[in-house]
């Protein structure tokens, strides 16, 4: 007889159980990430780590804590760029900064900071605009390796031409080379850029509000969540922003489909910069 109900594929069952195991054992919650992309990356992980099935991978993950960072490396995507989408940073500079100037002190949260590219972009922009001194930056991520690289501020030198071009296109007022020195195929960003930065392990899906912000920049993180996790994270942003605080998302992310859409208004629609409505 022909099956009429859709039967969950074995692989999908295994993935669901694997994510459940990851949550129960280590409290990393990937259960409501966007599954199509999780599945692709877990397949890569399974094949590259040499497991015959997701079930075998799960067994190893449960019994061997050393597997955790390796799996997290597959589950979280560390692709980033300094001044990625220069028009976004130009909009922050030209449209958001004038509002921020009216505050005596500022808090800025870079959520899902990856290797620090977005963070350093904002710190440099704030320095150029004379706001750095009065600003405390929070850079958070769930990936420890990423946080460590962000804190080190070291990047491969072959990425610098793109960073430099992006910085210029964002309306940069200085030369990017003022902020790093090059050695052995790498560039290290000046440690004074980290003077006002707090790096911290924080998950947008399991952790809570920790400070009141005037600007939150969270780009290309929400795309990895399904709608329920997106709502969770956006609720956190809503509760973390001061009155009239700003939220910047990635170029193709949108509040349109969220239950929190009403808490924000478009500030610069094309750049996905929103402003918290007064409560």
């Amino acid at each position, binding site marked *: 007889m022909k099956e009429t109900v859709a039967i969950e594929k074995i692989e999908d069952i295994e993935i669901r159980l694997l994510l459940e195991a990851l949550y129960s054992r280590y409290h990393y919650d990937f259960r409501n990430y*966007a*599954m199509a*992309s999780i599945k692709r990356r877990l397949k890569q992980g399974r094949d590259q780590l040499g497991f015959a099935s997701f079930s075998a991978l799960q067994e190893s993950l449960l019994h061997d804590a050393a597997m955790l960072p390796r799996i997290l490396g597959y589950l979280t*995507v560390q692709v980033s760029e300094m001044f990625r989408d220069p028009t976004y940073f130009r909009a922050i500079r030209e449209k958001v900064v004038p509002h921020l100037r009216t505050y005596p002190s500022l808090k800025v949260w870079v959520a899902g900071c990856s290797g620090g590219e977005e963070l350093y972009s904002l710190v440099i922009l704030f320095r150029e605009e004379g706001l750095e001194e009065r600003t405390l930056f929070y850079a958070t991520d769930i990936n420890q390796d990423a946080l460590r690289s962000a804190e080190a501020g070291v990047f491969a030198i072959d990425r610098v031409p793109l960073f430099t071009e992006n910085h210029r296109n964002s309306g940069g007022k200085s030369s990017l080379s003022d902020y790093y020195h090059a050695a052995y195929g790498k560039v290290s960003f000046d440690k004074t850029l980290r003077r006002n930065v707090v790096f911290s392990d924080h998950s947008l899906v399991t952790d809570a509000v920790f400070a009141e912000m005037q600007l939150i920049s969270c780009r290309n993180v929400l*795309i990895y969540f399904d709608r329920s996790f997106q709502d969770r994270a956006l609720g956190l942003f809503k509760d973390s922003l001061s009155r009239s605080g700003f939220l910047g998302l990635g170029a*193709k992310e*949108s509040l349109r489909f969220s239950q929190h859409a009403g808490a924000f208004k478009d500030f610069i629609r094309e750049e996905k910069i929103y402003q918290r409505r007064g409560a």
Partner: protein
Amino acid sequence: MNSRQAEAVVIGASAGALEALSVILPALPVGFSLPVIVVVHVPPNKRSMLTELFQAKCQVPVREVEDKEPISAGTVFFAPPDYHLLIEVDKSLALSSDEAVLFSRPSIDVLFESAADTYGSALIGIILTGANQDGARGLKAIVEAGGLALVQSPAGAFASTMPEAAIAACPSAQVMSLDALAACLKKFGG
């Protein structure tokens, strides 16, 4: 597959895409019943003009995808530059910044594999002109899930590498001209 079963169409194209899509997409009639989800290799650091261009040429609505957008019937969706486009089980469109695949982001393979996963045998996959091998793996996934594979005939293609690679990976694929592809789509969703 008989025409009742098709639920979605995915198309991949690279070098020469504009001309090829200009034969197929404007031919879709008002009231076309299937969503058409398209990956074209476009340069990462520029805004893509594809959406505006085809909005002007097509009878059906044309959109550039935003993350988690629901898939609506009878609409053409383009992947934005510099993001992979995937289809979620709940039939929404998801974007990702994952590494490029075969030097491409968006990648045709990534779209096709996730679409095959979601739509199974109710999917039509089409590979058009292009100068690389992207899409061959994805089309194979569609065939393995029971979907229908169509390929532009390499002889008539601006760049034949991509259709040739697709045919090599999927010997059962039907190979045809652009006009025949347009007619075939109308049959399934017209």
